[in-house]
Protein backbone atom coordinates (compact mmCIF):
# COMPACT_ATOMS: atom_id res chain seq x y z
CA UNK A 1 0.00 0.00 0.00
CA UNK A 2 2.72 2.40 1.06
CA UNK A 3 4.86 1.78 -1.99
CA UNK A 4 1.91 2.35 -4.28
CA UNK A 5 1.24 5.74 -2.70
CA UNK A 6 4.89 6.62 -2.98
CA UNK A 7 4.90 5.73 -6.63
CA UNK A 8 1.88 7.84 -7.31
CA UNK A 9 3.38 10.77 -5.46
CA UNK A 10 6.56 10.44 -7.42
CA UNK A 11 4.57 10.43 -10.63
CA UNK A 12 2.72 13.55 -9.66
CA UNK A 13 5.91 15.29 -8.68
CA UNK A 14 7.60 14.44 -11.93
CA UNK A 15 4.67 15.41 -14.07
CA UNK A 16 4.92 14.62 -17.75
CA UNK A 17 8.63 14.38 -18.44
CA UNK A 18 10.32 13.68 -21.73
CA UNK A 19 11.24 10.27 -20.37
CA UNK A 20 7.57 9.42 -19.93
CA UNK A 21 6.99 10.57 -23.46
CA UNK A 22 9.74 8.35 -24.76
CA UNK A 23 8.38 5.40 -22.84
CA UNK A 24 4.92 6.03 -24.21
CA UNK A 25 6.15 6.20 -27.79
CA UNK A 26 8.22 3.04 -27.38
CA UNK A 27 5.19 1.30 -25.94
CA UNK A 28 3.04 2.13 -28.93
CA UNK A 29 5.87 1.34 -31.31
CA UNK A 30 6.45 -2.12 -29.80
CA UNK A 31 2.82 -3.15 -29.91
CA UNK A 32 2.21 -1.63 -33.34
CA UNK A 33 3.33 -4.58 -35.53
CA UNK A 34 0.40 -6.70 -34.35
CA UNK A 35 -2.12 -3.94 -34.94
CA UNK A 36 -0.75 -3.01 -38.36
CA UNK A 37 -0.78 -6.61 -39.58
CA UNK A 38 -4.15 -7.20 -37.98
CA UNK A 39 -5.65 -4.15 -39.71
CA UNK A 40 -4.56 -5.48 -43.11
CA UNK A 41 -5.17 -9.22 -42.91
CA UNK A 42 -7.60 -9.49 -40.00
CA UNK A 43 -9.89 -6.53 -39.63
CA UNK A 44 -10.15 -5.45 -43.25
CA UNK A 45 -11.04 -8.96 -44.48
CA UNK A 46 -13.59 -9.39 -41.68
CA UNK A 47 -15.34 -6.15 -42.61
CA UNK A 48 -15.07 -6.98 -46.30
CA UNK A 49 -16.75 -10.33 -45.59
CA UNK A 50 -19.61 -8.54 -43.86
CA UNK A 51 -20.10 -6.32 -46.90
CA UNK A 52 -19.68 -9.17 -49.36
CA UNK A 53 -22.39 -11.16 -47.61
CA UNK A 54 -24.94 -8.67 -48.96
CA UNK A 55 -23.60 -8.59 -52.51
CA UNK A 56 -23.82 -10.79 -55.53
CA UNK A 57 -20.34 -11.23 -56.92
CA UNK A 58 -18.43 -13.81 -58.92
CA UNK A 59 -15.00 -12.42 -58.09
CA UNK A 60 -14.66 -10.56 -61.42
CA UNK A 61 -17.09 -7.87 -62.67
CA UNK A 62 -19.25 -5.53 -60.62
CA UNK A 63 -20.75 -6.26 -57.23
CA UNK A 64 -24.49 -6.03 -56.96
CA UNK A 65 -26.25 -5.30 -53.67
CA UNK A 66 -28.83 -8.00 -53.02
CA UNK A 67 -29.84 -7.38 -49.42
CA UNK A 68 -30.47 -10.53 -47.46
CA UNK A 69 -30.78 -12.66 -50.56
CA UNK A 70 -27.51 -14.55 -49.96
CA UNK A 71 -28.69 -15.59 -46.53
CA UNK A 72 -32.00 -16.65 -48.00
CA UNK A 73 -30.19 -18.71 -50.61
CA UNK A 74 -27.99 -20.62 -48.19
CA UNK A 75 -30.63 -21.00 -45.48
CA UNK A 76 -32.99 -22.60 -47.98
CA UNK A 77 -30.26 -24.81 -49.44
CA UNK A 78 -30.68 -28.39 -48.14
CA UNK A 79 -26.97 -28.95 -48.67
CA UNK A 80 -26.16 -26.12 -46.26
CA UNK A 81 -28.31 -27.68 -43.55
CA UNK A 82 -26.77 -31.06 -44.31
CA UNK A 83 -23.36 -29.50 -43.76
CA UNK A 84 -24.52 -27.99 -40.45
CA UNK A 85 -25.88 -31.38 -39.39
CA UNK A 86 -22.64 -33.11 -40.41
CA UNK A 87 -20.53 -30.56 -38.55
CA UNK A 88 -22.51 -30.97 -35.33
CA UNK A 89 -22.59 -34.78 -35.50
CA UNK A 90 -18.89 -35.01 -36.36
CA UNK A 91 -18.16 -32.56 -33.55
CA UNK A 92 -20.03 -34.67 -31.01
CA UNK A 93 -18.59 -37.98 -32.23
CA UNK A 94 -15.07 -36.68 -32.50
CA UNK A 95 -14.72 -34.60 -29.37
CA UNK A 96 -16.97 -35.99 -26.64
CA UNK A 97 -15.23 -39.40 -26.34
CA UNK A 98 -11.89 -37.67 -26.64
CA UNK A 99 -12.56 -35.44 -23.63
CA UNK A 100 -13.94 -38.26 -21.46
CA UNK A 101 -11.15 -40.74 -22.24
CA UNK A 102 -8.57 -37.96 -22.01
CA UNK A 103 -9.77 -37.23 -18.51
CA UNK A 104 -9.48 -40.88 -17.47
CA UNK A 105 -6.02 -41.18 -19.03
CA UNK A 106 -4.80 -38.04 -17.30
CA UNK A 107 -6.12 -39.34 -13.99
CA UNK A 108 -4.21 -42.61 -14.44
CA UNK A 109 -1.03 -40.85 -15.59
CA UNK A 110 -1.23 -38.68 -12.48
CA UNK A 111 -1.30 -41.64 -10.08
CA UNK A 112 1.89 -41.57 -8.04
CA UNK A 113 2.50 -45.31 -8.23
CA UNK A 114 2.01 -45.70 -11.98
CA UNK A 115 5.07 -47.14 -13.70
CA UNK A 116 6.29 -46.41 -17.27
CA UNK A 117 4.67 -42.99 -16.94
CA UNK A 118 7.04 -41.27 -19.37
CA UNK A 119 6.51 -43.99 -21.97
CA UNK A 120 2.72 -43.77 -21.81
CA UNK A 121 2.80 -39.99 -21.90
CA UNK A 122 5.01 -39.85 -25.00
CA UNK A 123 3.11 -42.50 -26.96
CA UNK A 124 -0.29 -41.03 -26.15
CA UNK A 125 0.87 -37.56 -27.14
CA UNK A 126 2.70 -38.64 -30.31
CA UNK A 127 -0.29 -38.42 -32.69
CA UNK A 128 -0.51 -34.69 -32.00
CA UNK A 129 2.75 -33.95 -33.82
CA UNK A 130 1.54 -35.53 -37.05
CA UNK A 131 -0.31 -33.14 -39.31
CA UNK A 132 -4.04 -33.31 -39.96
CA UNK A 133 -3.26 -34.07 -43.61
CA UNK A 134 -1.01 -36.99 -42.70
CA UNK A 135 -3.64 -38.38 -40.34
CA UNK A 136 -6.38 -38.05 -42.93
CA UNK A 137 -4.27 -39.86 -45.53
CA UNK A 138 -3.30 -42.75 -43.28
CA UNK A 139 -6.90 -43.16 -42.17
CA UNK A 140 -8.10 -42.91 -45.74
CA UNK A 141 -6.19 -46.13 -46.34
CA UNK A 142 -7.43 -47.77 -43.11
CA UNK A 143 -10.97 -46.80 -44.02
CA UNK A 144 -10.92 -47.26 -47.77
CA UNK A 145 -13.96 -48.57 -49.60
CA UNK A 146 -11.99 -51.65 -50.49
CA UNK A 147 -13.26 -54.94 -49.06
CA UNK A 148 -9.76 -55.74 -47.92
CA UNK A 149 -9.30 -52.41 -46.15
CA UNK A 150 -7.78 -52.92 -42.73
CA UNK A 151 -10.85 -51.78 -40.82
CA UNK A 152 -13.09 -53.92 -43.01
CA UNK A 153 -10.83 -56.89 -42.30
CA UNK A 154 -11.03 -56.25 -38.55
CA UNK A 155 -14.81 -55.86 -38.43
CA UNK A 156 -14.98 -58.94 -40.67
CA UNK A 157 -13.33 -60.93 -37.87
CA UNK A 158 -16.35 -60.02 -35.74
CA UNK A 159 -18.73 -61.11 -38.46
CA UNK A 160 -19.67 -57.71 -39.88
CA UNK A 161 -20.00 -57.00 -43.59
CA UNK A 162 -17.48 -54.64 -45.19
CA UNK A 163 -18.48 -50.97 -45.17
CA UNK A 164 -18.00 -48.38 -47.93
CA UNK A 165 -16.39 -45.93 -45.56
CA UNK A 166 -16.03 -43.06 -47.97
CA UNK A 167 -19.44 -43.16 -49.55
CA UNK A 168 -21.84 -44.07 -46.78
CA UNK A 169 -23.53 -41.71 -44.36
CA UNK A 170 -22.25 -43.21 -41.10
CA UNK A 171 -19.15 -44.82 -42.54
CA UNK A 172 -17.65 -41.45 -43.47
CA UNK A 173 -18.63 -39.98 -40.12
CA UNK A 174 -17.14 -42.84 -38.13
CA UNK A 175 -13.90 -42.70 -40.11
CA UNK A 176 -13.53 -38.93 -39.73
CA UNK A 177 -14.38 -38.81 -36.05
CA UNK A 178 -11.95 -41.67 -35.42
CA UNK A 179 -9.10 -39.69 -36.93
CA UNK A 180 -10.06 -36.56 -35.00
CA UNK A 181 -10.16 -38.66 -31.83
CA UNK A 182 -6.79 -40.23 -32.60
CA UNK A 183 -4.98 -36.97 -33.19
CA UNK A 184 -6.38 -34.91 -30.30
CA UNK A 185 -6.70 -37.45 -27.49
CA UNK A 186 -3.13 -36.95 -26.28
CA UNK A 187 -3.36 -33.18 -26.50
CA UNK A 188 -6.37 -33.05 -24.17
CA UNK A 189 -4.82 -35.64 -21.87
CA UNK A 190 -1.76 -33.41 -21.45
CA UNK A 191 -3.86 -30.36 -20.62
CA UNK A 192 -5.86 -32.32 -18.03
CA UNK A 193 -2.65 -33.73 -16.63
CA UNK A 194 -1.21 -30.23 -16.21
CA UNK A 195 -4.40 -29.29 -14.37
CA UNK A 196 -4.32 -32.34 -12.14
CA UNK A 197 -0.75 -31.70 -11.13
CA UNK A 198 -1.91 -28.41 -9.64
CA UNK A 199 -4.35 -30.22 -7.28
CA UNK A 200 -2.69 -30.71 -3.89
CA UNK A 201 -2.05 -34.34 -2.98
CA UNK A 202 -3.30 -33.85 0.57
CA UNK A 203 -6.85 -33.72 -0.71
CA UNK A 204 -6.54 -37.23 -2.11
CA UNK A 205 -4.87 -38.48 1.03
CA UNK A 206 -7.53 -36.98 3.27
CA UNK A 207 -10.27 -38.52 1.13
CA UNK A 208 -8.52 -41.87 1.29
CA UNK A 209 -8.59 -41.74 5.06
CA UNK A 210 -12.31 -41.08 4.80
CA UNK A 211 -12.55 -44.26 2.73
CA UNK A 212 -13.22 -42.72 -0.69
CA UNK A 213 -12.87 -45.00 -3.69
CA UNK A 214 -10.92 -44.02 -6.78
CA UNK A 215 -14.16 -43.21 -8.57
CA UNK A 216 -15.35 -41.05 -5.71
CA UNK A 217 -12.02 -39.21 -5.79
CA UNK A 218 -12.45 -38.61 -9.50
CA UNK A 219 -16.02 -37.46 -9.01
CA UNK A 220 -15.66 -35.26 -5.95
CA UNK A 221 -12.08 -33.97 -6.07
CA UNK A 222 -10.58 -34.18 -9.54
CA UNK A 223 -13.47 -33.09 -11.73
CA UNK A 224 -14.62 -30.09 -9.66
CA UNK A 225 -11.09 -28.76 -9.23
CA UNK A 226 -10.27 -29.39 -12.85
CA UNK A 227 -13.20 -27.35 -14.07
CA UNK A 228 -11.23 -24.42 -15.54
CA UNK A 229 -9.19 -26.90 -17.59
CA UNK A 230 -12.27 -28.77 -18.72
CA UNK A 231 -13.88 -25.50 -19.78
CA UNK A 232 -10.73 -24.68 -21.74
CA UNK A 233 -10.65 -27.98 -23.63
CA UNK A 234 -14.38 -27.88 -24.28
CA UNK A 235 -13.98 -24.39 -25.71
CA UNK A 236 -11.04 -25.37 -27.92
CA UNK A 237 -12.76 -28.53 -29.10
CA UNK A 238 -16.03 -26.77 -29.88
CA UNK A 239 -14.35 -24.05 -31.91
CA UNK A 240 -12.14 -26.62 -33.64
CA UNK A 241 -15.06 -28.93 -34.40
CA UNK A 242 -17.12 -26.13 -35.93
CA UNK A 243 -14.20 -25.30 -38.23
CA UNK A 244 -13.56 -28.87 -39.38
CA UNK A 245 -12.23 -28.83 -42.93
CA UNK A 246 -8.90 -30.56 -43.48
CA UNK A 247 -9.78 -34.09 -42.34
CA UNK A 248 -12.90 -34.63 -44.48
CA UNK A 249 -11.42 -32.81 -47.48
CA UNK A 250 -8.22 -34.82 -47.54
CA UNK A 251 -9.88 -38.08 -46.52
CA UNK A 252 -12.35 -37.92 -49.41
CA UNK A 253 -9.79 -36.63 -51.94
CA UNK A 254 -11.28 -35.94 -55.36
CA UNK A 255 -14.86 -36.54 -54.24
CA UNK A 256 -14.61 -34.10 -51.31
CA UNK A 257 -16.77 -31.37 -52.79
CA UNK A 258 -19.16 -33.50 -54.81
CA UNK A 259 -20.62 -35.69 -52.05
CA UNK A 260 -22.57 -34.69 -48.99
CA UNK A 261 -21.91 -37.41 -46.37
CA UNK A 262 -19.08 -35.51 -44.76
CA UNK A 263 -19.43 -31.98 -46.08
CA UNK A 264 -18.88 -29.53 -43.23
CA UNK A 265 -19.85 -25.85 -43.06
CA UNK A 266 -16.33 -24.68 -43.90
CA UNK A 267 -16.22 -27.07 -46.85
CA UNK A 268 -19.58 -25.68 -47.97
CA UNK A 269 -18.30 -22.12 -47.91
CA UNK A 270 -15.02 -23.13 -49.55
CA UNK A 271 -16.96 -24.83 -52.34
CA UNK A 272 -19.19 -21.77 -52.84
CA UNK A 273 -16.22 -19.46 -53.09
CA UNK A 274 -13.55 -21.43 -54.89
CA UNK A 275 -15.44 -24.05 -56.89
CA UNK A 276 -18.60 -22.09 -57.76
CA UNK A 277 -17.22 -18.52 -57.67
CA UNK A 278 -20.16 -17.38 -55.60
CA UNK A 279 -18.38 -15.10 -53.17
CA UNK A 280 -21.54 -13.49 -51.80
CA UNK A 281 -23.17 -16.69 -50.56
CA UNK A 282 -19.82 -17.98 -49.33
CA UNK A 283 -19.40 -14.86 -47.18
CA UNK A 284 -22.93 -15.20 -45.90
CA UNK A 285 -22.07 -18.79 -44.93
CA UNK A 286 -18.96 -17.53 -43.13
CA UNK A 287 -21.07 -15.14 -41.07
CA UNK A 288 -23.62 -17.80 -40.23
CA UNK A 289 -20.68 -20.01 -39.19
CA UNK A 290 -19.42 -17.28 -36.87
CA UNK A 291 -22.84 -17.12 -35.22
CA UNK A 292 -22.90 -20.91 -34.87
CA UNK A 293 -19.49 -20.87 -33.22
CA UNK A 294 -20.59 -18.22 -30.73
CA UNK A 295 -23.80 -20.10 -29.93
CA UNK A 296 -22.16 -23.52 -29.71
CA UNK A 297 -19.38 -22.20 -27.45
CA UNK A 298 -21.92 -20.46 -25.22
CA UNK A 299 -24.05 -23.61 -24.87
CA UNK A 300 -21.04 -25.78 -24.11
CA UNK A 301 -19.70 -23.25 -21.61
CA UNK A 302 -22.99 -23.21 -19.75
CA UNK A 303 -23.15 -27.00 -19.69
CA UNK A 304 -19.56 -27.32 -18.53
CA UNK A 305 -19.97 -24.68 -15.86
CA UNK A 306 -22.71 -26.80 -14.30
CA UNK A 307 -20.33 -29.76 -13.94
CA UNK A 308 -20.04 -30.72 -10.27
CA UNK A 309 -21.98 -27.67 -9.22
CA UNK A 310 -23.99 -29.62 -6.70
CA UNK A 311 -20.71 -30.22 -4.95
CA UNK A 312 -18.91 -26.90 -4.92
CA UNK A 313 -20.78 -23.67 -5.02
CA UNK A 314 -18.57 -20.83 -6.21
Amino acid sequence: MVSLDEKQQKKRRKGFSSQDMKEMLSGYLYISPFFIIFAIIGLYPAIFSLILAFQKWNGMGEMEFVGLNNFQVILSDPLFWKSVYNTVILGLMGTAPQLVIGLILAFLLNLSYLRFKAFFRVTIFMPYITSMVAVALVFSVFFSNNETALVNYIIGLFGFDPVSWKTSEWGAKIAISTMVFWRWLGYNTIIYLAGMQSIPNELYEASKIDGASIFQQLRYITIPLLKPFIILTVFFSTVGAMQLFTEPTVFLGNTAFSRDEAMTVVMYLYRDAFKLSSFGTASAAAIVLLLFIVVASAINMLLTKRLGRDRRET
Partner: protein
Amino acid sequence: MKGDVGTKKWGIGRIGMYLFLTVISLFSLFPFYWMFVMSTRHSSAYNSIPPAMVPGDQLKENFQKVLDMIPFFQSMFNTLIVCLTVTIVVLLISSLAGFAFSKLKFPGKNILFFAILFTIIIPPQLGLIPQYLLVAKAGLLDNLFAAMVLFFLNPLGIFLMRQYVSESVPDELIEAARLDGCSIFRIYRSIVLPIILPAFATLGIIVFTSVWGEFLWQFTVLRDPESYTIQVALASLNTQFKVDFGMLLSGVFWATIPLLIVFLLFNKLFISSIAEGSVK
Protein backbone atom coordinates in the same frame (compact mmCIF):
# COMPACT_ATOMS: atom_id res chain seq x y z
CA MET B 1 -11.17 -49.89 1.42
CA LYS B 2 -13.77 -51.31 -0.86
CA GLY B 3 -13.46 -50.48 -4.55
CA ASP B 4 -10.11 -48.78 -4.29
CA VAL B 5 -8.62 -50.13 -7.50
CA GLY B 6 -5.39 -48.24 -7.18
CA THR B 7 -3.91 -49.58 -4.01
CA LYS B 8 -3.88 -53.35 -4.13
CA LYS B 9 -0.55 -54.34 -5.52
CA TRP B 10 -1.53 -56.58 -8.41
CA GLY B 11 -5.28 -56.65 -8.08
CA ILE B 12 -7.73 -56.75 -10.96
CA GLY B 13 -8.00 -52.98 -10.87
CA ARG B 14 -4.35 -52.37 -11.38
CA ILE B 15 -3.99 -54.92 -14.15
CA GLY B 16 -7.02 -53.38 -15.84
CA MET B 17 -5.42 -49.97 -15.56
CA TYR B 18 -2.19 -51.07 -17.26
CA LEU B 19 -4.18 -52.97 -19.86
CA PHE B 20 -6.20 -49.85 -20.67
CA LEU B 21 -3.09 -47.67 -20.94
CA THR B 22 -1.36 -50.27 -23.11
CA VAL B 23 -4.32 -50.55 -25.47
CA ILE B 24 -4.46 -46.76 -25.85
CA SER B 25 -0.69 -46.62 -26.41
CA LEU B 26 -0.89 -49.29 -29.10
CA PHE B 27 -3.82 -47.45 -30.68
CA SER B 28 -1.66 -44.31 -30.75
CA LEU B 29 1.42 -46.04 -32.11
CA PHE B 30 -0.12 -48.40 -34.62
CA PRO B 31 -0.74 -45.87 -37.45
CA PHE B 32 2.93 -44.86 -37.25
CA TYR B 33 4.09 -48.44 -37.51
CA TRP B 34 1.63 -49.26 -40.22
CA MET B 35 2.53 -46.31 -42.43
CA PHE B 36 6.11 -47.47 -42.20
CA VAL B 37 5.12 -51.02 -43.18
CA MET B 38 3.03 -49.84 -46.11
CA SER B 39 5.76 -47.50 -47.30
CA THR B 40 7.97 -50.57 -47.76
CA ARG B 41 5.42 -52.79 -49.48
CA HIS B 42 4.14 -53.03 -52.99
CA SER B 43 0.59 -51.71 -53.12
CA SER B 44 -0.66 -55.19 -53.96
CA ALA B 45 0.16 -56.08 -50.33
CA TYR B 46 -2.80 -53.98 -49.51
CA ASN B 47 -5.15 -56.59 -50.90
CA SER B 48 -3.66 -59.52 -49.04
CA ILE B 49 -5.65 -61.36 -46.39
CA PRO B 50 -4.67 -61.27 -43.58
CA PRO B 51 -3.28 -57.73 -44.02
CA ALA B 52 0.47 -57.22 -44.31
CA MET B 53 2.01 -56.41 -40.94
CA VAL B 54 5.76 -56.72 -41.58
CA PRO B 55 7.99 -54.47 -43.70
CA GLY B 56 8.75 -55.42 -47.33
CA ASP B 57 11.48 -54.43 -49.79
CA GLN B 58 9.86 -51.57 -51.72
CA LEU B 59 11.13 -48.70 -49.56
CA LYS B 60 13.13 -47.06 -52.36
CA GLU B 61 10.67 -47.82 -55.14
CA ASN B 62 7.73 -46.31 -53.29
CA PHE B 63 9.62 -43.17 -52.44
CA GLN B 64 10.76 -42.88 -56.06
CA LYS B 65 7.08 -42.92 -57.06
CA VAL B 66 6.43 -40.10 -54.59
CA LEU B 67 9.24 -38.09 -56.17
CA ASP B 68 7.68 -38.65 -59.59
CA MET B 69 4.37 -37.30 -58.35
CA ILE B 70 5.29 -34.28 -56.23
CA PRO B 71 8.38 -32.11 -55.72
CA PHE B 72 8.85 -33.66 -52.28
CA PHE B 73 12.13 -32.03 -51.25
CA GLN B 74 11.09 -28.66 -52.62
CA SER B 75 7.86 -28.89 -50.60
CA MET B 76 9.71 -29.87 -47.43
CA PHE B 77 12.09 -26.97 -47.99
CA ASN B 78 9.18 -24.57 -48.57
CA THR B 79 7.56 -25.74 -45.36
CA LEU B 80 10.78 -25.29 -43.45
CA ILE B 81 11.18 -21.73 -44.77
CA VAL B 82 7.57 -20.90 -43.92
CA CYS B 83 7.77 -22.39 -40.42
CA LEU B 84 11.11 -20.80 -39.53
CA THR B 85 10.17 -17.35 -40.82
CA VAL B 86 6.80 -17.37 -39.08
CA THR B 87 8.38 -18.57 -35.84
CA ILE B 88 11.05 -15.86 -35.85
CA VAL B 89 8.59 -13.10 -36.75
CA VAL B 90 6.10 -14.22 -34.10
CA LEU B 91 8.83 -14.40 -31.45
CA LEU B 92 9.93 -10.86 -32.27
CA ILE B 93 6.46 -9.33 -32.41
CA SER B 94 5.32 -11.16 -29.27
CA SER B 95 8.36 -10.43 -27.14
CA LEU B 96 8.37 -6.72 -28.02
CA ALA B 97 4.65 -6.39 -27.39
CA GLY B 98 4.80 -8.59 -24.29
CA PHE B 99 7.58 -6.41 -22.89
CA ALA B 100 5.65 -3.23 -23.67
CA PHE B 101 2.43 -4.53 -22.13
CA SER B 102 4.18 -5.78 -19.04
CA LYS B 103 6.76 -3.08 -18.26
CA LEU B 104 6.03 0.15 -20.12
CA LYS B 105 3.47 2.79 -19.21
CA PHE B 106 1.28 4.23 -21.92
CA PRO B 107 -2.35 5.30 -22.07
CA GLY B 108 -4.88 2.70 -23.25
CA LYS B 109 -2.57 -0.19 -22.42
CA ASN B 110 -5.20 -2.45 -20.91
CA ILE B 111 -7.82 -1.79 -23.54
CA LEU B 112 -5.32 -2.52 -26.31
CA PHE B 113 -4.26 -5.72 -24.60
CA PHE B 114 -7.83 -6.93 -24.32
CA ALA B 115 -8.39 -5.98 -27.94
CA ILE B 116 -5.59 -8.37 -28.86
CA LEU B 117 -7.04 -11.15 -26.73
CA PHE B 118 -10.43 -10.56 -28.29
CA THR B 119 -9.06 -11.36 -31.76
CA ILE B 120 -8.51 -14.96 -30.63
CA ILE B 121 -12.20 -15.71 -31.00
CA ILE B 122 -12.47 -14.53 -34.63
CA PRO B 123 -12.53 -17.74 -36.68
CA PRO B 124 -9.91 -17.69 -39.44
CA GLN B 125 -12.50 -18.70 -42.05
CA LEU B 126 -14.43 -15.46 -41.60
CA GLY B 127 -11.90 -13.49 -43.61
CA LEU B 128 -10.76 -16.31 -45.88
CA ILE B 129 -12.31 -14.97 -49.07
CA PRO B 130 -11.15 -11.32 -48.75
CA GLN B 131 -7.74 -12.55 -47.61
CA TYR B 132 -7.52 -14.64 -50.73
CA LEU B 133 -8.62 -11.70 -52.89
CA LEU B 134 -6.09 -9.45 -51.17
CA VAL B 135 -3.28 -11.89 -51.86
CA ALA B 136 -4.43 -12.38 -55.45
CA LYS B 137 -4.60 -8.66 -56.05
CA ALA B 138 -1.10 -8.16 -54.66
CA GLY B 139 0.10 -10.79 -57.15
CA LEU B 140 1.25 -13.03 -54.29
CA LEU B 141 -0.57 -16.25 -55.20
CA ASP B 142 1.90 -19.16 -55.25
CA ASN B 143 4.24 -17.00 -53.19
CA LEU B 144 5.58 -18.31 -49.90
CA PHE B 145 5.16 -14.92 -48.28
CA ALA B 146 1.42 -15.28 -48.82
CA ALA B 147 1.58 -18.69 -47.18
CA MET B 148 3.15 -17.15 -44.07
CA VAL B 149 1.59 -13.76 -43.61
CA LEU B 150 -1.61 -14.94 -41.92
CA PHE B 151 0.33 -16.63 -39.15
CA PHE B 152 2.28 -13.55 -38.15
CA LEU B 153 -0.81 -12.70 -36.13
CA ASN B 154 -0.50 -14.61 -32.90
CA PRO B 155 -2.44 -13.08 -30.01
CA LEU B 156 -1.66 -16.08 -27.83
CA GLY B 157 2.06 -15.41 -28.29
CA ILE B 158 1.70 -11.85 -27.02
CA PHE B 159 -0.30 -13.11 -24.07
CA LEU B 160 2.31 -15.74 -23.18
CA MET B 161 5.20 -13.30 -23.49
CA ARG B 162 3.47 -10.71 -21.34
CA GLN B 163 2.92 -13.34 -18.65
CA TYR B 164 6.50 -14.50 -18.84
CA VAL B 165 8.04 -11.03 -18.75
CA SER B 166 5.84 -10.07 -15.78
CA GLU B 167 6.82 -13.19 -13.87
CA SER B 168 10.52 -13.35 -14.59
CA VAL B 169 11.84 -9.83 -15.15
CA PRO B 170 11.93 -7.84 -11.87
CA ASP B 171 10.85 -4.21 -12.05
CA GLU B 172 13.92 -3.19 -10.02
CA LEU B 173 16.24 -4.46 -12.73
CA ILE B 174 14.56 -2.31 -15.35
CA GLU B 175 14.45 0.67 -13.02
CA ALA B 176 18.16 0.33 -12.33
CA ALA B 177 19.01 0.08 -16.02
CA ARG B 178 16.94 3.14 -16.68
CA LEU B 179 18.75 5.12 -14.00
CA ASP B 180 22.00 4.10 -15.71
CA GLY B 181 20.66 5.78 -18.80
CA CYS B 182 19.79 2.69 -20.86
CA SER B 183 17.44 3.37 -23.74
CA ILE B 184 14.23 1.39 -23.74
CA PHE B 185 15.30 -0.70 -26.70
CA ARG B 186 18.56 -1.53 -24.95
CA ILE B 187 16.62 -2.64 -21.90
CA TYR B 188 14.65 -4.97 -24.16
CA ARG B 189 17.73 -6.28 -25.94
CA SER B 190 20.22 -6.60 -23.10
CA ILE B 191 18.04 -7.32 -20.08
CA VAL B 192 14.65 -8.68 -21.09
CA LEU B 193 15.66 -10.79 -24.06
CA PRO B 194 18.26 -12.95 -22.26
CA ILE B 195 15.85 -13.62 -19.39
CA ILE B 196 12.95 -14.67 -21.59
CA LEU B 197 14.91 -17.01 -23.88
CA PRO B 198 13.35 -20.13 -22.29
CA ALA B 199 9.94 -18.74 -23.21
CA PHE B 200 11.18 -18.48 -26.80
CA ALA B 201 11.61 -22.24 -26.80
CA THR B 202 8.06 -22.73 -25.52
CA LEU B 203 6.41 -20.34 -27.93
CA GLY B 204 8.72 -21.36 -30.77
CA ILE B 205 7.67 -25.01 -30.49
CA ILE B 206 4.00 -24.09 -30.37
CA VAL B 207 4.22 -21.86 -33.43
CA PHE B 208 6.47 -24.16 -35.44
CA THR B 209 4.32 -27.27 -34.96
CA SER B 210 1.07 -25.46 -35.64
CA VAL B 211 2.34 -23.84 -38.85
CA TRP B 212 3.90 -27.14 -39.92
CA GLY B 213 0.48 -28.77 -39.99
CA GLU B 214 -1.41 -25.82 -41.48
CA PHE B 215 -3.51 -26.70 -44.51
CA LEU B 216 -6.61 -24.66 -45.40
CA TRP B 217 -4.93 -21.31 -46.06
CA GLN B 218 -2.02 -22.75 -48.00
CA PHE B 219 -4.34 -25.01 -49.97
CA THR B 220 -6.17 -21.79 -50.93
CA VAL B 221 -3.25 -19.59 -51.98
CA LEU B 222 -0.71 -22.11 -53.31
CA ARG B 223 -1.73 -23.59 -56.65
CA ASP B 224 1.60 -24.15 -58.37
CA PRO B 225 3.20 -27.46 -57.27
CA GLU B 226 6.62 -25.80 -57.02
CA SER B 227 5.24 -23.52 -54.30
CA TYR B 228 3.44 -26.27 -52.35
CA THR B 229 4.12 -26.77 -48.70
CA ILE B 230 4.40 -30.41 -47.75
CA GLN B 231 0.83 -30.64 -46.45
CA VAL B 232 -0.62 -29.35 -49.73
CA ALA B 233 1.70 -31.64 -51.68
CA LEU B 234 0.67 -34.69 -49.63
CA ALA B 235 -3.01 -33.89 -50.01
CA SER B 236 -2.54 -33.72 -53.79
CA LEU B 237 -1.34 -37.35 -53.75
CA ASN B 238 -4.86 -38.45 -52.80
CA THR B 239 -6.71 -36.79 -55.65
CA GLN B 240 -5.91 -39.34 -58.37
CA PHE B 241 -8.66 -41.66 -59.46
CA LYS B 242 -6.71 -44.76 -58.54
CA VAL B 243 -4.36 -44.12 -55.65
CA ASP B 244 -1.25 -46.24 -55.11
CA PHE B 245 -1.42 -46.77 -51.35
CA GLY B 246 2.23 -47.77 -51.01
CA MET B 247 3.28 -44.54 -52.69
CA LEU B 248 0.77 -42.48 -50.69
CA LEU B 249 1.92 -43.77 -47.31
CA SER B 250 5.54 -43.53 -48.34
CA GLY B 251 5.01 -39.80 -48.86
CA VAL B 252 3.25 -39.47 -45.51
CA PHE B 253 5.92 -41.50 -43.75
CA TRP B 254 8.87 -39.47 -45.03
CA ALA B 255 7.06 -36.21 -44.37
CA THR B 256 6.30 -37.26 -40.79
CA ILE B 257 9.74 -38.60 -39.87
CA PRO B 258 11.65 -35.30 -39.43
CA LEU B 259 9.27 -33.75 -36.91
CA LEU B 260 8.79 -37.12 -35.23
CA ILE B 261 12.53 -37.46 -34.61
CA VAL B 262 12.76 -33.94 -33.21
CA PHE B 263 9.78 -34.68 -30.99
CA LEU B 264 11.23 -37.92 -29.67
CA LEU B 265 14.54 -36.21 -28.89
CA PHE B 266 12.94 -33.31 -27.05
CA ASN B 267 9.65 -34.90 -26.00
CA LYS B 268 9.64 -33.41 -22.50
CA LEU B 269 10.15 -29.89 -23.80
CA PHE B 270 7.54 -30.43 -26.52
CA ILE B 271 4.87 -31.74 -24.21
CA SER B 272 5.43 -29.16 -21.49
CA SER B 273 5.52 -26.33 -24.05
CA ILE B 274 2.26 -27.33 -25.64
CA ALA B 275 0.57 -27.87 -22.28
CA GLU B 276 1.87 -24.54 -21.01
CA GLY B 277 0.79 -22.71 -24.14
CA SER B 278 -2.78 -23.89 -23.70
CA VAL B 279 -3.09 -23.73 -19.97
CA LYS B 280 -1.65 -20.29 -19.13
